């Protein structure tokens, strides 16, 4: 595990570090502390990470500026902040969890467990997916996404307007962040089920999911039964 903590309160940063260490133990390979947005952004640029713990108010600067960059990256982001009123917006941006201050070990570990268990971050799910495009970050509304295809460490977002965008997060991570209407139908496909019109069975027990735009996506053999029970 490679973890970055962005927190300007020295005492709190140490607290988070201590609790992180306690939770991940020997699986933790890197734990870096920075106390400003600029340092945080610089670190993200040059290092591969699994998790960023981010404060939203850093020396008077707005952490949302950094959040937008962070959520476009492959790693997960957990917010640790005093400003509870920003929790909803943070989830919409696609953070895994929002830990309000003051926090205890239990609450922080609850957030950490989501990384391990892949349970969903929030019931509402992310409203936006941040996509890196020509050096800038653009927000794609998750309601405009038809389905997502895994492509190695990246994913491809297929949008309702016919366009395709690349995302740096893995299919597992996106499945965790997106609303529950997104369902994993195959090891390489995550589909917004409101777009599904039916299941097509073809020879050799091959199953396919028909979408409203006429496309048919493969359904994983092991997932077929559960999918049929849940959605049809």
């Amino acid at each position, binding site marked *: 595990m490679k973890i970055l903590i962005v927190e300007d309160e020295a*005492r*709190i940063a*140490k607290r988070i570090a201590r609790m992180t260490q306690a939770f991940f133990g020997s699986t933790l390979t890197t734990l870096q502390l920075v106390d400003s947005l600029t340092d945080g952004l610089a670190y993200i640029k040059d290092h591969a990470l699994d998790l960023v713990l981010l404060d939203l108010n850093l020396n*008077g600067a707005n952490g949302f500026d950094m959040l937008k960059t962070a959520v476009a990256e492959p790693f997960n982001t957990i917010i640790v902040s*005093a*400003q*509870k009123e920003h929790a909803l917006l943070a989830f919409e941006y696609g953070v895994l969890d929002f830990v309000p201050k*003051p926090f*205890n070990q239990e609450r922080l570990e609850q957030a950490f467990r989501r990384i391990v268990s892949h349970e969903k971050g929030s019931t509402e799910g992310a409203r936006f997916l941040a996509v890196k495009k020509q050096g800038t970050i653009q927000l794609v509304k998750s309601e405009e996404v038809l389905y997502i295809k895994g492509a190695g460490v990246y994913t491809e977002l297929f949008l309702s307007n016919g366009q395709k965008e690349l995302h740096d997060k893995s299919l597992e991570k996106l499945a965790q962040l997106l609303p529950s209407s997104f369902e994993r139908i195959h090891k390489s496909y995550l589909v917004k089920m409101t777009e599904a019109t039916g299941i097509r069975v073809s020879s050799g027990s091959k199953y396919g999911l028909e979408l409203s735009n006429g496309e048919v996506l493969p359904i994983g053999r092991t997932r077929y039964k559960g999918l049929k029970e849940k959605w049809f």
Partner: protein
Amino acid sequence: MKISTWVVVGIVLLTSGCGQMHYPDGPVIKYKVGDQPEWAGIDWDDSDWSTYVQKEADDIFWARIKLNFSEDWGSDQHLGLFLAVFGDYDLYWDSVWIGSNGQPGLENENDKSSEYHRFFLIPDSLSRKGPHVLALRASQKYYTADGTIRDFMINNYLELVQKPIRFSMYINLLAGAFLITAIYFFILYVNDRNSFPVLLFSISSFLFFLLISTEYIKFYVPFHYSKFYTRLEIISLLTFLISFLIPLYFSIQFAFLKRKWWLPIYSLLLLYIYIFYHNYGNYDEMTVYLTSSMWISSVVIVGYGVVRQVKGALLVFMGLLINVFIHYGMRNYDYSLVLSFIILLLCMFYILALRIREQREAYEFSLVQTTRLKHELLKKKIQPHFLMNTLTSVIDWVEESPQKGIQFIEALAEEFDLLNQIEDKQLIPISQEIQLCTSHLKIMEYRKEIEYIWEDEQIDPEEKIPPALIHTLLENGITHCLPLPSGNIRFKLSYEANAKAKTYYFFTYATLRMPSQEIVEGTGTKYVKARLTESYGNRWDFQSEQTEEGWKNVITIYKP
């Protein structure tokens, strides 16, 4: 009063008033010194008489006017004659004695009872179609060199007598409105001595009242012709004052920038016109030049306001232009005078109302601002960023070292206590402010684990400043600075006072997080400025800048 205008009015009435008489060149008044009863006769040959005659104070002389009626004067109405004459006279109409206003030749210094204005009823038998002659047997003890018959009118007697009274009824109505306005705004001024424009407006209204009252008093208050110039003196003095006050009023209301040099020059110009024409005794020209100066100055001042887009300037400018047009364009002096006064006063009133509203809005804004600042101060201790971060640190300290945790909580209690004491105050002693700062630093030391050093020098503990001013600057310092290599951040407050101002210097000795970043005015700076404005109006200055050693804030409060 314009004598010439009255003569014009007289002629206009003569020629068109009743539609029965027509004199293409106007009636000719002829004079001759001497005293012969035959001179009243209709057939007397006055071709050797002159239109002006040199006379002495005790001379008896005659004046004759020949008239010709093209038709009989109607039987249902009676002919009347109005005369405005310098002198005592017996009036003859077609050789018949009609009446007298005094005793010609026996004018007595102690008995100035003869009236300057007089109305006479002409017998019906003498108002038939054909030629007539109006003759005066007169003496003129005072202003002997001046013309004798200043004005005369012939018309239906009732119309002649009632018309000026009817007109003065409206004038008095208007004068009353001006008077009430003057009193009302004077009371407003007494209640708020700072509003100089209100006083100017009140005085202007009062002068308008006096001017039109004096102008038209002649219609209903009889006076001797020797008092004729007294009235003109009063009117010209009032005109002088009005001509001075109106542009002054506009120059204040439209913040005329060049007022400093304009005002003395303009005053001298008016004074010159006043004295010059006063010595000449030419009151009509004096009025023309005084009012012209007033109009030109006002139009320039308000026009300058229009260029600078001062609120309300355009409407007033239009009003003034209409006024100038009325003043120079309208032939009827009485109507143009009254109308231009009304429009001028409305212009002044409009701009006054606008400024009063602006003042009220500014006052209301200041009330809201005070409440807002109170809330902002209150928020300092309950805003989640401060409170939750502090509580998280408290929890961590308690878990690690209960002893330290307790000290931390005590420091927190002290800061809350201090904030409670100052929250609804507009000014607090600087010693209390310093206490607030040091207790805040204690808390931040626990949170940030940085050593904060507080220093102050030459502080007068009794001096008062708005609450949380230095505290806010301190917070900014903590937020935007990194410790020096020695591991600490040092703050220093010093104080300086001289005859003109009190100055607080607040230094932060530290490394700036973002030295090259452009400074945007944050909520902290806005709070500082708003607090200074609340307590000192515009008598303050706030400088905040980067130095080689960190940051420097300078608050200067000027003495009133």
